């Protein structure tokens, strides 16, 4: 990363830290959700954007992460921060296990298999034999954590919403940094090679089976971590929260944000969090039609996603500077 990018990042970070003290609690809550979604979208992007495996069922991993957090907090009294790594680990394994049979499936067929996963999971969550753990159709209610006493003791005004925002921000920074490191190195190149020319990559010695399954696992891990954070923010998990539409919204998010792009995850998260509300403001009669029009507009005008558009605008600016 060059100096300019570092400066932009620092400015963004500063703004992110200042935000909770400048806006209402409701907005802080919404921005916490934006960060949660951006972690989930980064996960999906690793699998679909960088590795070319289309997943229409990532909502399932989000749900698994959310239920991990809820069950640990509600039934076992585990503190909220400890649930995050557990949710990640469980989803890493689950994703890897799903990725194994998925190795045989390409494109369309993989999309269908993941679609079926996304559709089937809510029913599994409702299954009465699991009710003791999952709460069945009633779901599980959990409590938001308070800010640690030593921080509030210092006089920093940290209510529950703000504390959760900073906690999520910290986790997001860690996840993004991990992802950035992963994707700009050998692993990232291997993933992209598999996406673009599968057979050639294999011929060059890339162990496609391991990489593809691992991509599934890591991608699921990210989404699971996001699910756990999301559950704590919403304070409630129920099968109805994780239907197939969630998976579809995630896919929309990475395409709009920008495939194979790390900042794309953030743009996508902003889109899926705020555009439905804006659409609702524009038209109470058919808000989802407005949302659909937004989708088409974004795809037409920004075929490489918002990230691609930002890149192009930046490049144009550079060119203008060089050729006044």
């Amino acid at each position, binding site marked *: 990363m060059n100096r300019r990018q570092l400066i932009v990042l620092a400015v963004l970070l500063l703004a992110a830290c200042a935000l909770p003290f400048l806006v209402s609690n409701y907005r802080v809550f919404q921005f916490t959700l934006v960060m949660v979604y951006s972690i989930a979208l980064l996960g999906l992007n690793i699998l679909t954007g960088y590795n070319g495996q289309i997943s229409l069922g990532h909502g399932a991993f989000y749900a698994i992460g959310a239920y991990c957090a809820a069950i640990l907090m509600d039934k076992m009294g585990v503190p909220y921060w400890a649930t995050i790594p557990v949710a990640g680990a469980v989803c890493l394994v689950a994703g890897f296990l799903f990725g194994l049979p998925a190795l045989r499936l390409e494109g369309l067929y993989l999309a269908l298999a993941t679609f079926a996963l996304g559709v089937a999971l809510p029913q599994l969550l409702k299954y009465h034999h699991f009710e003791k753990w999952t709460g069945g159709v009633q779901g599980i209610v959990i409590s938001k954590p308070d800010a640690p006493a030593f921080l509030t003791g210092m006089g920093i005004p940290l209510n529950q919403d703000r504390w959760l925002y900073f906690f999520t921000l910290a986790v997001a920074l860690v996840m993004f940094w991990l992802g950035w490191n992963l994707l700009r190195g050998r692993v990232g190149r291997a993933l992209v090679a598999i996406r673009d020319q599968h057979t050639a990559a294999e011929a060059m010695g890339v162990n496609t089976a391991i990489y593809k399954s691992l991509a599934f696992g890591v991608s699921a891990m990210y989404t699971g971590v996001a699910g756990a954070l999301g559950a704590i923010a919403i304070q409630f998990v129920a099968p109805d929260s994780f239907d197939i539409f969630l998976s579809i919204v995630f896919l929309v998010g990475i395409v709009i944000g920008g495939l194979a792009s790390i900042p794309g995850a953030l743009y996508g998260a902003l889109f899926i969090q705020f555009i439905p509300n804006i659409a609702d403001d524009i038209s*109470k009669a058919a808000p989802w039609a407005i949302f659909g029009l937004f989708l088409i507009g974004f795809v037409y005008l920004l075929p490489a996603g918002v990230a691609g558009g930002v890149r192009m605008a930046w490049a144009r600016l550079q060119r203008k500077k060089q050729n006044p």
Partner: protein
Amino acid sequence: MKFKLVPIAALLAAALASSAALAQKKYDPGASDTEIKIGNTNPYSGPASAYGTIGKTIGSYFKMVNEQGGINGRKITWVSYDDGYSPPKTVEMARKLVEQDEVLFIFQTLGTPSNTAIHKYMNMKKVPQLHVATGATKWDDPKNFPYTMGWQPNYQTEGRIYAAYILKEKPNAKIAILYQNDDYGKDYLKGMKDGLGAKAATMIVKEASYEVTDPTVDSQIVQLQASGADTFFNITTPKFAALAIRKSFDIGWKPLHFLNNVSASVGSVLTPAGLDKSVGLISTQYIKDPLDSQWANDKAVLDWKAFMGKYYPDGDLKDASNIYGYTVAATLHQVLKQAGDNLTRDNIMKQAASMNKFRVETMLPGIAINTSQDDFAPIQSVQLIKFDGKQWVRFGEIMGK
């Protein structure tokens, strides 16, 4: 003497009145001299979008009230958001209503999971979650959740009523149950099982569930018939109720058929299923069915039809949800009238918990709303009804309280 007394008395009276008025005119956020802001979430999109019409009916009702001068001189501002029947969205919209729009209270939020998601939050914020649009039993818990109140008769009570009827009229029944695999379906199931008590295990010969995403319930109905049951408890939402009634008839299965109140509408359910196929259905009811010919000239139903024509012309007159919305809105109308100028959240709850034999005329005769500090279940009485091919005929006494 009289001459002097009058002005003194008048002065005293004026002083008392003004101080009383000053003392009574109390506002929490969302209320003012001119406005009462009411919040709501409804599923205007998504799998439960058929119920979104309730939010529209209530909005239209308050439009009518505003045109007629408002309540105690104040106009109602109805702020209703779509939550797509998704609990995270309900949480977000409820927070928006309370923290950004600063409504006085929220009213008729729809759906059991949606209301469960905001249950703790609303009580923590001390904002009334009033007359929620679900029949789950958990909303009647004033000790732990003093700011939440239901409205319609709860599902478990209804299940118990059918169980009591079966135990009395057909004690050797073999019961088959079709239920929607969610909170609502399971609540009814629990009610029936509790009502049957120890005999539940022997009397219930088959249970079959379905998801709202299932295209048909044909397979389930065939399973239920194959179990040899002669009694059928049909716990389904309108579309699936119609499918179940039709299929049962088509395969020649003629059990003693109980239909849950949620789908007891002549227009939305029995007509698509086939009126001839619905003969003998038993259900309970507390509201007049607009398509039932016995109410064709009933003043309250005619008033409702006029209201729909003028204020909600897009609304379907055959859809029972629309008379439900009208009736619950009228209930709130009474609560707000009772609150007078004391528009604090605590007083709203107090007034909602002080209703004594209150009736909206679109309710069935004999049904009334009663609430108290220990009783947060406004409607607990229902009437057993049987369909004769043309109308729902009331029989037996009013059950419940």
